[in-house]
């Protein structure tokens, strides 16, 4: 795996409002990288820039040393960038299993090499992904009717269908209980070990601190700290951003 993601001085302006300000960061292959920050810090905006739903006002996005700043979203998916959404974007008129099936069908249309491998084995691939994400019990439920925690897993399952080399997860654990979050952490580690780099936006600090190799902290659109979870927990600016005052 030598693909990796690089943001160079990315800024996003909404009218006069600066949502993301000169952000530079890199995701190393085979790691779980966290992105935390208070609400409105610009985390989702940054994800939208990486996945192509938003064009940055300035700066560049590089993936495997190639400039993808102006690449269409669907082409980014095709080179291996998968994502989930903070505000759920499920295919609500379809069942859980059909959500995954249609994702496979969509990706089969552009991924002809895999179509040949998969051939008629679409259902076994669906079963594999359902097992992996633990969604077997709700496979036939309508996507609109399952609890948020599981709905987030459906989004993850859908993104996994792409066999992405990097996965952007936007608050995947919100709506999950402690137990679910813990097993979710294990799942992330498993995915990472299988070669998928993960970029994680999350408010659940235990998940971030327990699973991430590296954490970036965003506040008012700027990166204010980078480091291992231990370093971040002690970082003065981070504590100030989260608590609103300096640690004595």
């Amino acid at each position, binding site marked *: 795996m030598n693909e990796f993601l690089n943001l160079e001085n990315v800024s996003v302006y909404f009218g006069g409002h600066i949502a993301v300000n000169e952000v530079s960061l890199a995701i190393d292959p085979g790691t779980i990288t966290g992105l935390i920050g208070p609400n409105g810090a610009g985390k989702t905006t940054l994800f939208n820039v990486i996945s*192509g*739903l938003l064009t940055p006002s300035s700066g560049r996005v590089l993936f495997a040393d190639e400039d993808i700043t102006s690449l269409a979203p669907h082409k980014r998916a095709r080179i291996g960038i998968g994502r989930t959404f903070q505000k759920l974007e499920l*295919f609500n008129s379809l069942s859980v299993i059909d959500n995954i099936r249609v994702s496979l069908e969509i990706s089969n249309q552009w991924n002809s090499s895999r179509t040949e491998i998969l051939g008629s084995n679409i259902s076994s691939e669906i079963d594999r992904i359902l097992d992996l994400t633990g969604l077997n019990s709700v496979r036939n439920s309508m996507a609109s009717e399952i609890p948020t925690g599981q709905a987030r897993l459906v989004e993850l399952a859908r993104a996994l269908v792409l066999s992405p080399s990097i996965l952007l997860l936007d608050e995947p654990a919100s709506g999950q209980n402690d137990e679910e979050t813990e097993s979710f952490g294990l799942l992330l580690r498993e995915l990472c070990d299988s070669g998928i780099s993960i970029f994680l936006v999350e408010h659940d600090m235990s998940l971030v601190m327990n699973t991430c190799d590296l954490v970036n902290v965003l506040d008012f659109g700027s990166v204010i700290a980078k480091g291992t979870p231990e370093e971040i927990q002690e970082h003065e600016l981070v504590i100030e951003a989260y608590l609103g005052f300096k640690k004595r």
Partner: protein
Amino acid sequence: MTEFITFTVVGLATGAIYSIASAGLVVTYTTSGIFNFAHGAIGMFSAFLYWQLRWDDGWGGSWPAPIALLFVLFVAAPIIGIILQIVVMRGLEATSETTKLVIPIAVMLGFIGIANWVWQGAEQRIPKPFFGRNAKWSIGDAYITWHQTIIVIVAVLLAVALRFLLFKTKIGITMRAVVDNTSLVELNGGRPNRAALQSWAIGSILAAVAGVLISPLLGGLGVLALTLLVVNAYAAAIFGKLRNLPLTFIGGLVIGLSVSYWNWISSTGQKWPWLSELRTTLPVVILFFVLLLLPQEKLRGSHAATIRERFAVPSIQASLVWSSIFVVVVSALSLIITDKWESLLTRGLTMGIIALSMVLLTGYAGELNLAPLAFAGIGAISAFQFDVGSAVETGPGFATLIVLLAISFGVLVFPAFGLVRSRLFFAVVSFAFIVFILVVFFDGTTGTGIASRESMSLSGLVVAALISGSIGAVVALPALRLRGLYLALATFAFAIFVDRMVYKQRETLTFDIPLIGDNEDVSINIFNNGALNIPRPNFWRINFAEKQWAMLIFVSIIFCIFSVALIQLRKSSYGRQLTAMKDSPAACATLGMNMRRLKLSVFTLAAAIAGFGGALHASNLRTIQEDYPFTIWEGLALFMLTVVGGIGYVSGALFGGIIYACAFIVMGDFWGKLAEDWGSFRWLFTFLQDFFLLLGPALAGIGLGRNPSGVGSQIFDGFRILKKKDHRTVLVCGSSLMILSWFFRVIEVYNGWVFILTSLPILFLMPLLAEARDRDVKSRNDTLIEMAGIEYDFSDEFISYIDAELSITSDFNVDERNTLNE
């Protein structure tokens, strides 16, 4: 120079009116997120009201201009706006874009209905310009009327006032804040509802100003003409991307001036006869191209969780069973109904086939198309030209054209079904070959053989679908980048274009097909003198021209085939992808989907279905005219009624088609007959007749807010209870009684009314009876548990019943109970 000044002044004046009208649209859109399709109709209504107060011989009639103006602009118009906001628009939160579009369309049709009702008759209503026709001043030799001067001054004043209102007053700031974030405004103590009310009042006033100012420029007042004139303002609003007022004003002026200069260049349309209608069409052409040039919309998700519409998909078996039942019922009915009813029902079904195109496009794929009948009209014209009308100079001309169309259709549609490379090539070639065989062997291609036939051919229908589909692909171009409202407007523009440039086309057009014959291979007089006579089919030695019942059964079978095919499509990989695209375009993109290809294919396919249905509809009617049945208004009504029926279901299409073609006419007839028979209540029945004919469709549309998923599903849900085994007796008894009632009608024991009065109550009593039985059983069960040991013995029988309900095995239970007893 004089001419230049004159045309510039005319352009500026009409442009200023467009600016005013479109500013009203922008104000309401920005504060409520609803594009007010009824805007033009409010302007029209106000213009009529003003005329009534000023010049009518009856009520009003002699009000002085200032008082009449004050009343129309500052009393009537704001009240209309406020009532609309409270009664109709406020309920549209968290509904889909389709519903948000349909309800204003229903309101527009309602206004048109009311205006047609109140201002009936062929009386010429001619409003006078301010200060009379002769009040003018001059620049050089060019005269400028005071009316034109006033228009420009009013536009400038309104522009300044609006700017001041939105940026310098508290009301305006709240109104703008509501657009950005309604809940935040609420949290900060603002009142979003009040802001919305104010904006609707202002929007309505602006529409009224435009209506009153523009009406004297027209000559006589016309309901549809005035409504559509304000539609021209839509293009101006799009110039400002529905948000920017200064750009909107500039847009209005650009449109006004373009039309005026075009009139100058083309000597009011006389210079190039086949373009003569461009003078009325130019604004929508501009609208279409502005939409094409709009920057790519940001991909967004629909957050469908908040949306109230839900469409379930029936199984294939169910759809096959229902289709068979449907054909049987229609055939049975054809034995007992009169020719008139047969022909009404046939019309409903052919309209239903056209409505199926909307189920595919809007219901399944979430793309809006306000021009279903434009495609149907193109289909009908194509079938006519192919079978009857055109002059084909060289025989192979048409065949070649058709093969080319078949190839392009295949290339557009087949890849979306996962066919690539060699398989795609094979599929396209076979499809083109089949079409070629159909045309050459069944129709012959020598001389002018294809045209001037006496019956509609099967290949005529295929040609209708292919041509309509290809044009659908062209109209889909804006769709590749736009969604929702913008797409709806693009298709609306297309519908108006077809209404004027195609249906009113009287010139003969000649085409050259490369490599074939000389340079006039096909010459077509698109719309012969305002009417086309399209023959009935004549397949399988059945003369459909003479046998209406055969036509009825034929179209019911076609409807069922299309319906089952659509349901099958929805359940296929292609259908799942359409659903995914509808539910969340953003998620589709992040899965690598290229939505352009999918959109192009679904537009092509839907237009082809509409074209096919249109040809069939026209063939059933035998004649189509420039103003019936494929106009923009009829199209909007059909679209609206299909949404009311449930656009996500084929049953919605059936409902839309039948209600559109029969229900209101039948109701109108019913009251009309009563009015004839009961002279003393004539006024009441005539009122009811007009009410249903003129306002029925609009009211059906407005009622949609209550059940955005449509009526069709509701009816089906109601009957679903009969599927239960417990209610088989009810189903069997009820059906037998209905069959008996039908049989008595067949052997003419009684007339149609008795049949209706016996069978309909049985039909609707069946689910009610089943429900009552369910309730009965449920309440008995309830008593059992509550009252055990008091009203009943706590018997072993009862215990085993409880065990069974709780799924406890009896062996275990006996031991357990014994232990407990000990």
